[in-house]
């Protein structure tokens, strides 16, 4: 295991009114690893994601992303800067594609910041300079690479909203990869997939980990995915971490079993 973690979450607390959605949570995720966050419904997994990606600001705690250039404190950045500067990509539980734009356009929009620089804030593009068309060509190449990777190349010119559910999920992952993330956060990527699609997803995710060397953070209910591909599992319940370990350890953990199946003595009583 590499000595420095990629993501370091320390004492993060997020309250909504009196409800502690995430309560004093600390864990780390390492580069080139898939870290799964699991837990019963309402355990605070998505809230945690929203804290990491800046959509919520935690009341307490620090979230650090370790880049080569040094640490970046995510809780201090705006959500769009977390994607732009810290390079954390994410997908959403309820898929959020640009439904009335084409599949390819979805991936081009994801490269907005790079293309904006190349087009000198669109000026070069307005004047029709070669500099921009070259940049757009590179952007298209990247999009093509990822479309090929997720098996959607033949659908590149279709409206994203017209794709079947499983394809939309894969497209969302491809889109997030187009920002060149260091950390990719996936919110239930296997939800609603059939077993075959689920298997393909496993291949895709391990491929991203092994070939692109980035860290993945994964919320998932599908245990075949979690146990099959995770290197590390963090278990949440009621906003707190109740266990962390490799898949084998988690499978045997008493606290985890209790959280999922209920207190045995309660059931008897």
């Amino acid at each position, binding site marked *: 295991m590499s000595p420095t973690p990629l993501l370091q979450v320390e004492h993060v607390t997020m309250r*909504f009114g009196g409800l502690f959605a995430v309560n004093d949570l600390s864990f780390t995720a390492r580069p080139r690893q898939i870290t799964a966050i699991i837990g019963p419904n309402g355990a605070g997994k*998505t809230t945690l994601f*929203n804290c990491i990606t800046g*959509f919520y600001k935690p009341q307490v705690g620090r979230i650090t992303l370790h880049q080569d250039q040094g640490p970046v404190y995510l809780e201090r950045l705006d959500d769009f800067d977390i994607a732009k500067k810290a390079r954390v990509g994410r997908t*959403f539980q309820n898929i959020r594609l640009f439904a009335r734009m084409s599949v390819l356009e979805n991936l081009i929009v994801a490269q907005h910041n790079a293309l904006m620089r190349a087009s000198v804030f669109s000026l070069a593009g307005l004047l029709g300079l070669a500099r921009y068309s070259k940049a757009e060509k590179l952007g298209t190449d990247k999009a093509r690479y990822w479309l090929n990777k997720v098996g959607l190349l033949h659908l590149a010119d279709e409206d994203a909203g017209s794709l079947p559910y499983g394809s939309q999920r894969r497209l969302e992952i491809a889109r997030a990869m187009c920002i060149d993330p260091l950390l990719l956060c996936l919110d239930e990527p296997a939800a609603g997939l059939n077993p075959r699609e689920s298997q393909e997803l496993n291949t895709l995710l391990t491929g991203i980990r092994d070939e692109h060397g980035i860290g993945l953070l994964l919320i998932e209910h599908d245990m075949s995915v979690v146990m099959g591909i995770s290197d590390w599992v963090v278990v949440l319940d009621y906003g707190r971490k109740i266990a962390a370990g490799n898949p084998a350890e988690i499978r045997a953990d008493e606290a985890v079993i209790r959280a999922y199946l209920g207190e045995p003595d309660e059931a008897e009583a």
Partner: protein
Amino acid sequence: MEYFLQQLINGLTLGAIYGLIAIGYTMVYGIIRMINFAHGEIYMLGAFISLIAFLTATTIGGTSVALGLILALVSTMILTALWGWAVERVAYRPLRNAPKLAPLISAIGMSIVLQNFSQLSQGARVKPLPPLFKGGIEILRGDSFTVSLSYLQMVIIALTVLLMAVFTWVITRTSLGRAQRATEQDMKMAALLGVNTDRIISATFVMGATLAAVAGLMVTLYYGVIDFYIGFLAGIKAFTAAVLGGIGSLPGAMLGGLLIGLIEAFWSGYFSIEYKDVAAFSILVLVLLFRPTGLLGRPEVEKI
């Protein structure tokens, strides 16, 4: 001090009228998330219908002024409500599942239609009505200025309070109100549970129009002149009031109405009458900057 008190009274009266119109906006927005642009015109129709009904009762029916007013109030409420219902049925209901801007454009079109319809059918000139309620009480007599509360102002404020009470009762205590609140929360779920949502939405428009009708009658009496154009500005002010109070919130609409009325009264009283509309809008922008969902609006937690 006397001057201040007088402006306060005037502002409250005006605010009560705005508040009554604002409720129509806020309820419709709450239930179908749409700015009912024609609502100001419904209020304008209310003003015309009330004047016509009152004149019919007194000149043709030969009733006394008091009886004429009561008859006018009742018939205006019924007939204006019917207009509100018809507008929804014709211009909005077919667009229930259309893109978001379609009903808005339809509503703006409806507003233009109603405005021009009134102009054509009743003429473009302002319609004056001699004051019916004369007199009032002197509250405070200062050295140079006397604060008075006219009987009409008392009637307007009392009627508004009464309507608000009835209205709150309908919303919170009756099955219609319960169905309305359910539809507002989740239209699909309410429909699944057997609520006839189309009917509930119609009822919402009818209620809003009824209150606007009362506001129309009040304005006819208070200012003594009406024309086909009064709906536009009053509509905008009332919508501003609804947003200021927090759109979707009934107490918010009333509070917003009162605030807009007070701002206008004080601004014209102390600064300049020309810029009173600017003042109202500026306050709205300021409030929205600090409370994006209005004064009493529930903060929307965005589901991500």
